[in-house]
């Protein structure tokens, strides 16, 4: 069963056709990788899923509901979380606060005027946040202000912020970019563990090691068009893919 269904999506920026008749079906419970050279339109596609951009034409349905026209917070509330290509975190807040906020959002909804209760009394939320920081290996820094983290650590923090929400669909835009090899491997292990629990993931990645360790299905995007789609072994030897990558900036 497909949980995310993308049909004939087009998006144009001025004269540039960033997405051209994109069709994509994401099966529930699978890890689906989207690869392609820089500027292929991968991030733009994710932007159309989370309410950052509206496609010019086409449809994006999640769990049978159209995401088009929904506000970003509404989309998150129906179960879609995203890790961004440039980390989006609460830089002035501590790590544990960064993870507690999404946890409150999942528990209390898009708005709740809880000005009298005390964060210090929210032991469940705090423990939950600490567990996730433990999972991503940042628990020792829980009281550090998150601006002070390295880029790779910020990404892991953002991942914890998404995971604490127990989303139905997790979108990852280059989650290991800027990470040291060891951290990349830890992140792969963590994502594998999460995938086993049945969480659906869409992952954009340049690192083929990451892609082939995780993905059950791969779509290849080049110049806004899906040029190939299939199982990892099928994609590996695909002539069009070789060509797109050789022609692109990235290999």
């Amino acid at each position, binding site marked *: 069963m497909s949980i995310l269904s993308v049909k004939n999506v087009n998006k144009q920026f001025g004269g540039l056709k960033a997405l051209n008749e994109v069709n994509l079906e994401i099966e529930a419970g699978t890890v689906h990788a989207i690869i392609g050279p820089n500027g292929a339109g991968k991030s733009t596609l994710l932007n159309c899923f*989370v*309410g950052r951009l509206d496609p010019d034409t086409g449809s994006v349905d999640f769990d049978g509901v159209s995401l088009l026209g929904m*506000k*970003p*917070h509404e989309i*998150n*509330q129906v179960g879609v*979380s*995203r890790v*961004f290509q440039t980390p*989006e*975190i*609460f*830089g*002035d*807040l*501590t790590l544990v*606060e960064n993870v*507690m*906020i*999404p946890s*409150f*959002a*999942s528990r*209390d*909804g*898009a*708005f*709740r*005027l*809880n*000005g*009298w*209760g*005390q*964060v*210090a*009394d*929210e*032991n469940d939320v*705090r423990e939950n946040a600490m567990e996730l920081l433990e999972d991503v290996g940042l628990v020792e820094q829980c*009281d*550090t*202000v998150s601006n002070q983290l390295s880029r790779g650590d910020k990404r892991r923090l953002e991942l914890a*912020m998404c995971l604490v*929400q127990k989303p139905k669909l997790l979108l990852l835009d280059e989650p290991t970019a800027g990470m040291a090899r060891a951290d990349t491997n830890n992140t792969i292990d963590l994502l594998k563990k999460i995938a086993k629990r049945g969480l659906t993931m869409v992952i954009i990645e340049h690192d083929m090691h990451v892609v082939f360790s995780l993905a059950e299905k791969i779509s290849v995007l080049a110049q806004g068009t899906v040029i190939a789609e299939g199982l990892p072994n099928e994609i590996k030897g695909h002539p069009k893919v070789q060509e797109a990558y050789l022609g692109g900036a990235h290999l």
Partner: protein
Amino acid sequence: MINFNVKNKDHMLLIGFIIVVALAPIIMAPIGGGYPDLLQKFAIFGIFAIGFNILFGLTGYLSFGHAAFLGVGSYTAVWTFKLLTMNVIPALILSILFAGVFALLIGFIVLRRSGIYFSILTLAFAQMSYNLAYSVLTPITNGETGLQLRLHDARVLDGLFGVTRGEGLPSTSLFGMSMSGWSGYYFCGVIMIIAFYISIRIFRSPFGMMLRAVKSNQNRMSYTGLNTRPYTLAAFVISGMYAGLAGGLMAITDPLAGAERMQWTASGEVVLMTILGGTGTLLGPVIGAGVIKYFENIFSSFNDGILMEAFSWLPEFLQHAMVSVIGLFVGEGWHLTLGALFMVIVIFLPGGLIEGISRIGNVIRRWRKPKPLPTTEADTAASE
């Protein structure tokens, strides 16, 4: 462990705050501030700044129009005195409510923008209110004369409860206790303590955390499933209600409301107080309000005569030179001093006086213990 510490520190802070408010007449006496009128002013502007800080300190939305809510609070209080009763409680409740409703309406519009555009919109709205108070709304505001009590005001509730009408204008009271002099100060002091306690609760609540998230990254907030607009609107309304309360208290001290209370200079003053004391800290705004009102009191009372006397030991031509230079900074010109003080603080202590205090604290600690742990910014913020 950490939680316990934060709570403990907050309790200590609150207890310390209560003690200072209670003993203020004694503490302030040696530096010439131990009289009720001035202390009352500290308390009222303290409340104004505490509330302003909930908006500006937590969400980062810089309003240049909060004096409008102060004005609404004052007008409401005086109208309550005129129509219902000279008892201050209904006046305060209605001041808070009216200012809250007004803030809701204005906030709904101005919060469509953020950053500098938000600031300009608030300024525009406050100036509109100020001008309306002088023109269209004169039946309510009594224009330039200001809204005043009259002998023949209705005072329906007072009539019902059989309060006898005296010969002269009645004075405000709390169930018979007159609101002038020391009882007036302590009444305002108690209200400020309550206001301060509420602000501590908000700072440490999940709601307060969301407001800090607004300041930090609104994008992340939306993609995290949080609707930022009602959060900012709630903060705006709460700070508007604080301003209304302060305006109501002003009317209690002196039952007269004029439109000049809504002028942009009054809005600017609370911004200065908050930044001077320490934006986003619990205690900073109160300290800022106290310092500004104290110096205003001292500096604006100096005149050339006093200065001449102070420099009488100098040769005459030097005496005149000194007086004409320093004279620029005192009396009417005291705003020049305020401006200079503000610049010094912002440049050397961007965290305000609170940062200065915690720096001194660190120096002392280092001096006592040879090898201290390095403190991060987070520590200073949390320890305050």
